């Protein structure tokens, strides 16, 4: 295992500590519960909390700041944070307007965030609403019963719901716009190499040199197929096609694209893939109104990428381009 760490046991604590030191103007840390809060807590706006397993950096702590999240809860690597960690974040970020939890749709996350929300509502009378992001088109609903996974599209939810909350909107309005994003965003990803979980010390899956795992999950879960690697153009074509099959987009529409690196992919390759995605969308007369290219929702050191497409209307456009000032995204 090739990692810059101290010990597998201290990875998350060391990372949280380094993160907060690097961004001390933005955030502070509750060490015990591993919650990263906005430096100045505003109790007059809807506060947004997200989180999940660690290993997806800069998600989610990187998006804590003005115009996006108010708190991020850091679980162990690839494991949902506990109920009490999340509960602690909710009570700390209690606000007159209420709290919105942005949850990636994984059983563990759902159970723990739900449990924490119940506790905060029942024990502390805090208004809590929840949204579940399920943008991954790799796994289709027919295959299973727990619903789609939440992946990189979550970043758009943070951005847009965060901008809405910043306007002083009510909890119901912020939740509604978050759900609008969720209804309109789809993601498809693939891996060229496996990630290596520090505690395990070995790659999560084996993969030959000429192969890729198409539709991989952000924890190294298996995808839809093990395929031969193909050119960036073909990869983009297949990926956009799968997204558009699931969510048709009319000619002339405006969209946002997130070309997301999974952690071990060079920036160079992300731009090469973006170039192909942009080509395809242009040819389909779909207009890329906004884009992000970079590492936003990673899977440790995995080489690979995901493409997220969000259909935009006037409201989403305005909120997407509204000011944001966070460690990992500044608009």
């Amino acid at each position, binding site marked *: 295992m090739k990692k810059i760490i101290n010990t597998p046991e201290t990875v998350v604590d060391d990372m949280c500590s380094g993160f907060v030191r690097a961004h001390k103007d933005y955030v502070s840390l509750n060490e015990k519960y591993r919650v990263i809060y906005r430096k100045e807590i505003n109790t007059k706006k809807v506060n947004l909390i997200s989180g999940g397993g660690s290993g997806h950096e800069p998600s989610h702590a990187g998006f804590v700041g003005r115009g996006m999240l108010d708190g991020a809860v850091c679980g162990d690597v690839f494991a*949902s944070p*506990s109920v009490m960690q999340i509960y602690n974040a909710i009570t700390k970020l209690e606000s007159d307007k209420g709290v919105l939890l942005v949850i990636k749709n994984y059983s563990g996350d759902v159970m723990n965030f739900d449990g924490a929300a119940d506790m905060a509502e029942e024990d502390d009378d805090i208004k809590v609403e929840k949204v579940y992001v399920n943008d991954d088109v790799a796994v289709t609903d027919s295959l299973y019963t727990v619903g789609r996974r939440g992946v990189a599209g979550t970043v758009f939810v943070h951005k847009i719901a965060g901008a809405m909350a910043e306007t002083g909107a009510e909890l119901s309005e912020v939740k509604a716009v978050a759900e609008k994003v969720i209804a309109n965003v789809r993601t498809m990803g693939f891996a060229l190499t496996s990630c290596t979980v520090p505690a395990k010390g070995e790659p999560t899956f084996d993969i030959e040199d000429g192969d890729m795992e198409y539709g991989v999950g952000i924890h190294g879960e298996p995808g839809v197929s093990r395929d031969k690697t193909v050119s960036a153009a073909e990869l983009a074509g297949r990926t956009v096609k799968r997204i558009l099959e699931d969510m048709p987009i009319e000619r002339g529409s405006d969209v946002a694209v997130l070309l997301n690196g999974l952690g071990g992919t060079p920036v160079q390759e992300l731009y090469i893939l973006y170039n192909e995605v942009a080509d395809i969308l242009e040819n389909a007369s779909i207009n890329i109104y906004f884009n992000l290219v970079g590492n936003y929702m990673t899977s440790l050191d995995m080489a690979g990428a995901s493409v997220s497409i969000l259909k935009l209307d006037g409201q989403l456009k305005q909120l997407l381009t509204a000011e944001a000032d966070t460690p990992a995204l500044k608009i």
Partner: protein
Amino acid sequence: MNTLTLEDVKKILDITADTVLENEKHFCDLDAVTGDGDFGMTLAKGFKVIKAELEDSDSEDVGGLMKAIGMTMLETCGGATGSLWGTGFRAMGKSARGKQEIALSDLHEMATSFIGGMQKVGGAELGDKTLLDALIPASETMAKDAGNGLDIAAAMKNACDAAAEGAEKTKEMKARKGRATYLGERSIGHPDAGAEAISILFKAVNDKFFC
């Protein structure tokens, strides 16, 4: 033996904790096949704390003890396990509230609550390829044996067999809850890690406490 005292329950929990800690890697390996390989780690993280807390627990009844354990799990363990087991223990805490002694019928009621708590948060049914596929059959034999007036040790032996049988059956199931669902058809052929763990824990408690 027809009832368990608070001390007995603590001893059983201590055996459970030891078994979890001994099997940490094994449980991870089981989870790695169909899930993400952290089940043993998560469970061990919780039971390490529980073992320490058992020593100077000031709970005065079985319910209080169970509730405290539930809180510890909700605090210490993330993942599906933290929420499922934490809620399960808290539900047992409610069902055993105020009890100093536990009869077989109480034990069955506690098992039912444990299962109910897990179902409340996880929504799984029998046959979904989860630990419930070991737990539910075990709980059902207890109900039957309680009705037939068996003593706890004999009932425990039966529960143990039912759990093992239930865990074995998960091999043929297709996962409908938990991370294994992402495998779809590919989950068939491997047992569920949680169900296997339940079976192993039952066996350890049976061997080390009741035999």
